[in-house]
């Protein structure tokens, strides 16, 4: 291995190897976000509290960031089981004694702030999965690796869904898939995994879609049957058995006819459908009312233009009306007069877009580009496989946050309830996001050293 800067002490070396661009990107996003939160909070009755907590979050986040940067990241690799245990314990704990907030039992109420275990869990899961895959690097191409990896993550995903916190799941699932992808998992198995995820999501969308088309429901027996599958009942069980039988027969026929299709494809397809159905069922039962209605309006905006579609439309109006240079901070009519809902949290981009214009939104995108670029760079220069995987996972996670949040704000993604890290108001998310960046810094600054 190469030792750079021979004469310098380790701490000095690391400081020199700090990725200031990464820190700059995060700082830039925080500045933009703080401005937007300030502006969005002005008309709110509890704005002092919001600003107070935001700075508390930044302060705590900076400490956590420094700890993350200072700690050799390999420690997570060594102690991943403890991390896993902490995550599960927190998630179980919050289900038992958590605060109910907006229909979700996902918060611990602490003296100064509330704290969301699912935020801790999502970072921990990336670390744990990376550690796990790091140990099975030689078997990564096998089906076993995937199955075990899923087995590892599934309980946590389930606990998060149980809260229910669909949005954390939405971010975590692609991030986990990205880690597996970067780890070099077999394309077929990854396809299998994505297939299950996509199918369950598409099934939810389809069930929702058909449920608003009552006239189709009455006219088509096929659709009625399809709707039957949306919850656990005899039809579902029979269908599952039917699917298994169908694929078995298909394989048997193919084998008899001498068509050389490996059995694994049949098993995979059948499992995708079965798992997709099950996962779709769980999603269907956990989806929240407001999420459902957003889905409905995304599918058919004419259903209720004044109701659920209102939020999405108002956010789009805010962004579009900002133009190139924006209306000026504190002067956005859409945000200041309360037309944009959740404007300091989920729809913070609407505030940025309206008050800072295209310059603001492109600045956010540009800073995210820098952030993700530096994280992926850290992955490339990481001195070991674990660091590489962690950086990939964290990068993928931030990308997911960006796509879902921004996509929702501009009306190309239906589901919502996902914050934009560093820009949205939200303490737990901010602290945990800063921790993730600290970990990436740790990976970056230790790229030349041997643990």
């Amino acid at each position, binding site marked *: *291995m190469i030792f750079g800067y021979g004469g310098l002490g380790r701490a000095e070396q690391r400081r020199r190897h700090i990725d200031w661009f990464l820190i700059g990107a995060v700082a830039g996003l925080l500045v933009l976000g703080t401005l937007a939160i300030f502006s969005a909070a002005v*008309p709110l009755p509890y704005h002092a509290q919001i600003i107070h907590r935001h700075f508390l979050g930044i302060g705590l986040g900076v400490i956590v960031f420094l700890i993350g940067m200072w700690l050799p990241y390999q420690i997570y690799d060594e102690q991943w089981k403890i991390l896993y245990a902490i995550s599960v314990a927190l998630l179980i704990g919050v289900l038992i004694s958590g605060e109910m907030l907006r229909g979700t039992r996902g918060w611990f109420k602490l003296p100064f702030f509330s704290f969301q275990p699912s935020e801790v869990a999502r970072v921990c899961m990336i670390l744990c999965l990376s550690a796990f895959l790091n140990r099975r*690097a030689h078997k990564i191409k096998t089906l076993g690796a995937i199955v075990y990896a899923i087995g590892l993550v599934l309980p946590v995903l389930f606990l998060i869904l149980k809260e229910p916190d669909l949005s954390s799941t939405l971010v975590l699932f692609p991030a986990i898939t*990205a880690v597996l*992808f*970067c*780890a*070099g998992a077999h394309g077929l198995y990854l396809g299998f995994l994505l297939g299950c995820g996509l199918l369950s999501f598409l099934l939810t969308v389809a069930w929702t879609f058909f449920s608003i088309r009552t006239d189709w429901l009455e006219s088509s027996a096929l659709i009625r049957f399809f709707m039957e599958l949306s919850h656990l009942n005899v039809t579902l069980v029979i269908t599952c058995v039917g699917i298994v039988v169908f694929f078995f027969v298909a394989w048997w026929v193919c084998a008899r006819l001498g068509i050389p299709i490996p059995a694994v494809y049949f098993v995979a397809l059948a499992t995708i459908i079965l798992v997709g159905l099950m996962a779709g069922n769980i999603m269907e039962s956990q989806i929240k009312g407001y999420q459902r209605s957003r889905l409905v309006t995304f599918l058919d905006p004419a259903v209720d233009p*004044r109701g659920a579609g*209102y939020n999405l439309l*108002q956010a*789009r*109006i*805010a*962004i*579009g*009306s*900002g*133009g*190139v240079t924006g209306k000026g901070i504190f002067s956005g*009519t*859409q945000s200041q*007069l*309360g*037309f944009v809902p959740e404007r300091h949290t989920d729809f913070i981009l609407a505030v940025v*877009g*309206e008050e800072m*214009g*295209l310059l603001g*939104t*492109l600045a956010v*995108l540009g800073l*995210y*580009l820098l952030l*993700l*670029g530096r994280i*992926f760079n850290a*992955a*490339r220069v*990481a*001195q*070991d*496989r674990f660091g*590489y995987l962690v950086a*990939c996972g964290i*990068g*993928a996670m931030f*990308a997911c946050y*960006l*796509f879902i949040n*921004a*996509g929702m704000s*501009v009306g*190309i993604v239906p589901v919502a309830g996902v914050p934009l890290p560093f820009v949205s108001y939200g303490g737990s998310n901010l602290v945990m996001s800063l921790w993730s960046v600290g970990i990436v810094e740790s990976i970056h600054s230790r790229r030349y050293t041997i643990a």
Partner: protein
Amino acid sequence: MRHELSFDRLNQLSAGVYLMMGLLALRFVDLQVIRHSYYAKAAERNRTQTIIQTAPRGRVFDRTGNLLATNRPAFSLVFLPSLTKNQTYLSRLAKDMAPYLKKTDEELLRELQVAFETGSPVRLAENLPPKTMFNLAELRTLYPGVDLVVEARRYYPYGSLASHLIGYLGSIDSKTWLRLRDRGEYRKDSRIGKAGLEKLFERELRGRDGGILLEVDAHGKLQGILQQMDWKPGMDIALTIDSKLQRAAEEALRASHSRTGAVVVLDPQTGAILAMASVPDFDPNLFMIPQDEEVSARLKSLPEFNLAAQGTFPPGSIFKIVVAAAGFNEQKIFSAEKFFCPGYFQLGPRTFLCWDKKGHKLLDFLPGFAHSCDVYFYQFGLKTGADLIEQYERKFHLGMLTMGSNRKEDERFSLPGEKKGLISGPGERARRKAHGGDWYQGDTVNLSIGQGELLVTPIQMASLISTVANGGSIWKPQFVEKVISQDGHDIYQRKPELSGTVNLKPETWDLLHQALIQVVQDGTARSGHVSGIKIGGKTGTAQNPHGEDHAWFVAYAGLPGKPPSLALSVLVEHGGHGATAAVPIAKKIIEVALKPNDRPPEGSLPKEVPPKNGEQE
């Protein structure tokens, strides 16, 4: 490599991420640059709401400056819808407000929902009484989006006075709105002149509405006033009407036997309409009241028919003026020529009665005219001949619109719906081919006393007597004295307009005047005599086969030694005898106009009165 991994997967992942970011950037450009103006407008619509404030319409004065139509500030309750309000809010609001607005919860809720769905403000109530306003002001603090605005509302201080002339306002109908909306001055809830002056001079009277541009938040709560757009009042109109005469005429008609009739008072020297009454009439203020069932019912049976210009009747004996003018002017007969009246007249197998069955015995023109002896005029007419009589009908512009005009721009100065009436005579009958087109002697007999096919309107008769009074000038009746723009300029100033001249020999005029004065002095209109005033007139009783006869009286009046300053016609529909039903009405009007002592002291300003109307103090 430090670890046995290729970066292919990472490169693919990051490429995908950058691609997605590029798409997001394009979407931002799409929203914020390409479709910016659309969203900017949407945002502006969100935060602003406009309340239109109806501008005051131009005022209408009478000739002495009395206000006949003006405006009063009125409070309206408006509801500013906002997107965040929900059904429960609306129904709660409806329930709380309904008792104050005399509406049911359901009605109010429906109105609120329309506003909510269309996103535009709605007037929930207009012209609120102070008490209701006070109550609602309290509610306003509880319900954001409910507000009170002040507006100018049309008000007619004298109620039904001259209502047929002034007309009324009504909601704009959808057809008119479609036609006018491009002018940008009307809204769907605008009021527009529906009849009379309000309709004829809609363009002048209507002001430009003002408004308030409000900023509201997502809950419809008022944030502030962005812009106040001042209204511009409409132009004022001064009428030739004298409200004292008008009122006297209307009151007298209302007190008459049948409570139905018309009075037209003209200035015989200029054609100015001093009064034009038609009873039954209506109170145009009714149209400004929010419509409840009672009001709607009253509006349905609205007496919109202006008898003075639209009612056609046989003239009866007042037509004897025309017959006499024809006979004497054409020298077919001499005033001293006597006829015998036994109470009836035999023409071949037919018998024509005189109104007085006792008969008038032997008499010449002056007593024959003063007592309106029918038998005298049967023979007078036969001697004059129907052709000549018809010729004189035309000479006096019977069968023509008194206010008709050839110029399109003058149309607004004439009353809409005026009737022409019918000429009667051999020529007209031949032209119409009525009764086979043939004219018989019996027809001439009937025509001589104003019966038969002849039909005239009260305003035609007023014009007739005015022509006689001034010695042959047929002035076009006019009712608009001035149109005054808001900056004080006269846009229009009335100029007397001659629509024709009747050229008769001076002796004929003298004889007619003598005869008309005799009628009032010791003839059928004796009861109409007013001491100290020179009055000439003629009564008429138009036979009506369907009911009681119509009572007529036409007269001119003036101070002694001065030209007549008043020419009037009175018609009491189904009033019976002209002498008993119509004459007292005319007498009252003449007294009010020419007997200064009898008038109550009034502070009204003597304004713009033409000198010839020398009745002012």
